[in-house]
């Protein structure tokens, strides 16, 4: 391991990137498969992980160099607590309409988002991006907040089916699968209102890495941003790429809602996320994202 440092056989610098096999990492895979990394003199190896937080120890130990699709909420918290000297290489995705939805059973008495007040809503991780955005949306509409239950995405379908929760807050591709299997309907587009355009994940690394390998960091950013531009311009490219690395069938890939792939990192957007986190008590101090963005 300990990639990043030794150039590989053909003189390219080797980088190990931990990534979730989800839509969030599409730009990474596109960049790899379209040779964008190679163009920057990088040899990128992808190491799949199930949750971005699971890659944190490996990042600190130098077993991976970059975490793709790293959940900002989680990593800003780690930064605030001092566990990680965070640097953001590039932005990953921003929230787009119907990329996440609040689903209820077809025959549910819940008719409008306002009915959610006090009801049980399933999210994958408590006190994270899902509840943050849903709260923001409901607050904006003046509706009451629900109570959250922690249920992993794959189990949301059965839980909804058995009436263990009133609604689930699911992301793609689970969202489409749940709708298809149990006839659940969308109560609320969780990518709408104040949530829309909010940065969800990014490509992050440590300050140490950026200091030691400024060239590799810059090259990585250029490649990912190029891939993001490509993805934003041609969603079809993402839809063909998806079945190659994620557990998504080609048919599913055709119909699911994709997030937005921003071409450049924008401190203002990140500041909006940080303000929201502060307002809901997920951060205790203010964090200025500008210095965290790698040049």
């Amino acid at each position, binding site marked *: 391991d300990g990639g990043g440092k030794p150039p590989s056989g053909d003189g390219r610098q080797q980088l190990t990137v*931990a990534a979730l*096999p989800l839509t969030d990492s599409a730009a990474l895979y596109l960049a790899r498969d379209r040779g964008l990394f190679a163009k920057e003199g990088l040899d990128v190896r992808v*190491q799949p992980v199930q949750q971005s937080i699971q890659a944190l120890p490996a990042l600190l130990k130098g077993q991976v160099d970059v975490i793709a699709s790293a959940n900002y909420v989680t990593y800003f918290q780690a930064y605030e607590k001092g566990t990680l000297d965070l640097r953001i290489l590039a932005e990953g995705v921003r929230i787009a309409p119907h990329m996440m939805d609040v689903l209820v059973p077809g025959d549910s008495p819940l008719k409008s988002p306002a009915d959610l007040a006090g009801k049980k809503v399933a999210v994958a991780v408590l006190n994270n991006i899902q509840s943050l955005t849903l709260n923001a949306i409901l607050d904006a509409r003046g509706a009451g907040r629900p109570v959250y239950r922690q249920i992993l995405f*794959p189990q949301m379908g059965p839980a909804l089916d058995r009436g263990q929760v009133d609604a689930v807050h699911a992301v793609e591709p689970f969202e489409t699968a749940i709708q298809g299997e149990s006839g659940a309907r969308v109560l609320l587009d969780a990518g709408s209102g104040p949530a829309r355009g909010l940065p969800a994940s990014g490509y992050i690394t440590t300050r140490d890495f950026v200091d030691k390998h400024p060239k590799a960091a810059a090259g990585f950013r250029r490649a990912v941003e190029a891939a993001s531009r490509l993805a934003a311009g041609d969603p079809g490219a993402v839809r063909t790429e998806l079945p190659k690395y994620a557990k998504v069938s080609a048919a599913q890939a055709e119909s699911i809602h994709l997030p937005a792939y921003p071409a450049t990192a924008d401190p203002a957007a990140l500041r909006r996320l940080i303000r929201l986190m502060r307002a809901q008590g997920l951060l205790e101090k203010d964090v200025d994202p500008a210095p965290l963005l790698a040049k």
Partner: protein
Amino acid sequence: MTRRQDVLLGLLGSAAAFGVCEAVARAGFVRRSYLPPASQVLARAVRLAGDPAFLDGIGVTLRAWALGLGLACAVAVPLGLLLGAVPVVEAAARAVIEFLRPLPSVALIPLVSLLLGSGTRTEVTLIAYASLWPVLFNTVYGLGETDPLAKDTLRAFGSGRLAVLLRVELPATAPFIAAGVRISAAVALILAVATEILSGFGQGLGIFIAQAETATDGTRDVLAGVVWAGALGLVINGVLVRAERRLFAWALEPRETAGRLRRGLRW
């Protein structure tokens, strides 16, 4: 009871369990994709045997299992003998041990990963940590159960404390240690798979299961992985039981003497 009857009864029990799982899934209480019938799971598990990548993963998991269990035994048996034999050491170490023991390995995953990084070293450490206790405690308990007259006998023949420990207490405790190893073997296997699932990083049976869990209809694959884990456990236990029978024949009731009173069977 003949061997054949044993096997037949075992098959009967397995068939019954299989039947129940199949029936529950087919009865339609829940959607098929949420709880696939046992037959489909089994078929999938069998097909996995032909997948070299999956078999590689099994190899990785088993390696971590063996290393962790071996490390645990290598530490636990001598430590158990020391604790059981020297009351002062036991008294001194007791508080620390009792405090460390309940620390959940599940919760230690992130901390140990921070120290050792993700991967085999972390996995082996956690496996060893969790499977240390059964061997250690069975060793200490076994020592307490040694017949005092047997110990006196060796002392009377001029054996020192160490010789009594090695020649009487260790052999007398051995069957009990073996039972501890058997418990640990299962714990270690669970830990190997669970660590992989929860750390979500690397290669192995647990990673296969974790990846299946993130798929929209992965339950069948998850359960096929479970079948493999269970089957591994079954085989490992069978091997250990056979080894014990061979090693500790003296501790078994002699077949003929016990006649129809013979009930003893081993786990």
